[in-house]
């Protein structure tokens, strides 16, 4: 997995009806955009390290030109 600061990581639900979770990448700690990532979770603003597994995908955000 490769991510950049500002990307959103989505963790897909494992069971039927389990919601997806998401967090924002604040820092990339691995080489070449690799994990681990320092992330911020939802509204609480709490930060943790994130080690992506097969249940996670990255949503890249391209900067928009004014």
């Amino acid at each position, binding site marked *: 997995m490769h991510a950049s600061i500002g990307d959103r990581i989505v*963790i897909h*639900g*494992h069971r039927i009806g*389990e919601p997806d*979770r998401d*967090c924002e990448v604040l820092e990339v700690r691995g080489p070449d955009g690799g*994990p*681990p990532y320092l992330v911020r*979770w*939802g509204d*609480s603003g*709490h930060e*943790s*390290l*994130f*080690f*992506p*597994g*097969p*249940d*996670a995908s990255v949503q890249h955000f391209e900067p928009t030109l004014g």
Partner: protein
Amino acid sequence: MQVIEGIRRSGVGVRPEQTIREAATIMEQSGVGALAVVDGEHLVGLITDRDLVRRGMARNVPYDARIDSLMSTPVVTIDAQADLHDAFALFRTHGNRRLAVVQEGRFVGMITVDDLLINLAADLADLSRPVMAEAIFGHHDSALPATE
């Protein structure tokens, strides 16, 4: 199959100085039941939702106490490139439900008994499919070699 291929869920880590309240919130928001406690690049402990209840709430530990006051240590680890069957032996020996997976000494994720059981069930289903097909549809002989 290597251990790293058997991991089904992402891993989440906290710093030792983060609070019990933060750890509980992160568990809730990330949907995991166990967090790695990581100091710099070093894995120093594991904290589970069960630890929060039994070692924290049941003993009136304040919610703003450091998470390393409740964590389990030392951590039983397995190398990411180890064979998945090595994990069975470790689970048998240590009697816990989670192993920290490390690569070059760094934490990369967690493998659980549930992960192993799901992989095992999938393997058994793959093995049983042709046997069940034979039981239902009968034996299928391969074609004889062509003769002139």
